[in-house]
């Protein structure tokens, strides 16, 4: 017993760089050798899917991209999956960005899904309105008069010359909002200044770290479901039947979590052993 206690104490005082190495291996190995762990959609992911699926064909959907390269692994797979779902159901997609780096990621996603996969036409089936600085003031601007805020799209084309902008003057002209958010400004600002005052339904996909913050809005019915981080993206990929980076990352995610939990348990057991020993002597 003493041998085990000593071993645990030794392990709990190991150089932190060994822990980094073990975490790195626990992420890399499942990426090379996938385990194929099952992915089951949680009710909040299912709610997003059902809400989007229930929209009448040809609806006007606003997708807002509030993320950047640093949060791309979590949010980008969601945006790709949601766009695939929207284009499959023949909706018109309007994309805005509250973050400057959201613009080129949104452009990348629209080119991949809208242009390459579905062969859709820019300006008729989808449009990238782009980034405008101003945080919640931009959301307020879209709610009151989108044409005042966006006179040109991200490519510099006047919105008056974009066919699918006909009849779109303010936020209430959209049938649904999907906010792909990695922080401020993002989902919460859309709830506060757009969805709640106008009753236009919205769903969201957020980084894991934001989930706790946004979940109360989902529970209160102010947001129709949430895609929670990379697992949320993987679940949505499973629902639309197109596996992507979210799905391939889930094995690594699960194994890494298991290793972290083991380290936490080990650290706590080590702490308890040490405390008991110091009480004795």
């Amino acid at each position, binding site marked *: 017993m003493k041998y085990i206690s000593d071993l645990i104490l030794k392990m709990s005082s190991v150089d932190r*760089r060994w822990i*980094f190495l073990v*975490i*790195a291996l626990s*992420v*890399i190995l499942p*990426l*090379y050798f996938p385990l194929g762990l099952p992915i089951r959609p*949680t*009710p909040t992911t299912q709610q997003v899917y059902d809400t989007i699926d229930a929209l009448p064909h040809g609806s006007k959907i606003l997708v807002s991209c509030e993320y950047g390269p*640093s*949060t*791309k*692994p*979590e949010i980008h797979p969601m945006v790709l999956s949601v766009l695939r779902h929207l284009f499959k159901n023949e909706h018109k997609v309007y994309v805005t960005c509250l973050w*400057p*780096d959201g*613009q080129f990621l949104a452009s990348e996603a629209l080119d991949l899904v809208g242009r390459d996969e579905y062969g859709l036409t820019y300006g008729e089936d989808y449009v990238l309105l*782009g*980034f*405008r*600085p*101003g945080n*919640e*003031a931009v959301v*307020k601007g879209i709610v009151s008069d989108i044409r005042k805020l966006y*006179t*040109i799209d991200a490519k510099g084309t*006047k919105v*008056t010359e974009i066919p699918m902008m006909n009849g779109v003057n303010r936020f209430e002209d959209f049938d649904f909002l999907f906010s792909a958010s990695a922080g401020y400004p993002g989902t*919460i*600002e859309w*709830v*506060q*200044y757009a969805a*709640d*005052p106008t009753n236009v339904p919205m769903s969201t996909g957020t*980084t*894991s*770290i*934001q*989930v*706790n913050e946004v979940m*109360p*809005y989902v*529970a*209160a*019915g*102010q947001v129709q479901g949430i895609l*929670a*981080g*990379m*697992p949320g993206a993987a679940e949505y990929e499973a629902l639309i039947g197109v596996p992507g*980076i979210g799905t391939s*990352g889930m094995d*690594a*995610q699960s194994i*890494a*979590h298991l290793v*972290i939990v083991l380290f936490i348990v080990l650290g706590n057991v080590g702490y308890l052993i040490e405390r008991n020993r110091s009480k004795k002597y």
Partner: protein
Amino acid sequence: MFGEIFGAWVAVFLTFAIFSFLYKDNPFYKIAEHIFVGVSAGYWTSMFFWTQIQPNLFGRLWPSAQYSDGFWYGIYNFFGMISSSIFPEGGIDKGHDMHLTYLIPFALGIMMLLSLFKKLSWFARWGIAYTVGMAAGLRAYGYLNSNVLGQIRGTIIPLADPDLPMFSLLGASHFNNLIILVGTVTGLLYFFFSKEHKGNFGKVTRVGIYFLMISFGASFGFAVMGRISLLIGRFVELITYSSAQYHHATLWVLVIMVGLLGYSAYNDKDNPETEGS
């Protein structure tokens, strides 16, 4: 193709340079850190200028639709001689009409930049005052409507609804509704400081602390999940760039960087000043 391969090598180098901080602070990390800050600042400035200031501010002050030979466009033409890409010939064509009221935010913006000069820095207060006042007004409404009223509405739930099951793991149930009620009330009472947290009141607020701790635990769990997701994203790219298509960029950069860091550590092993830095 060259651009793509070069970009991959740069991405791999910067990724490993940032990861190298996990070993210890080193010049690779410093290089990546400085590049990140510089590129971010440059990118944001450029985006702000070309998506807002040029089209929406200058575009409203000197729109091409109302171009004339008068004094106002004379100023514009003078600026055009300095930079024709910002002030193109014949006015700015971004679909705006002339709105001279935009001179006010233009002036406030310049006043904020005056904070760089010690003697004139007080001008910046006007711009800051406007921003703070506008943000406070906007947020007061948003928070009251969504965070106060919306959240109160969300916690008003039936405790004796015959359609609800007694227990449910994820959906609505009598048990879950009771948890929401107890958690909300005890959590709020914990932040009531006009009465000392002793006796029965103390026991109730203690339950509130447990609910708060569970919430913090969930936040920690989600934070870990988020960081692992980002790590997966980097590793997926490193694996992609390790292929022959990118001339095995990942392997080469890893070997060179580890070699240089190892050589540096070997040279510094007898120097106590650099130990652990």
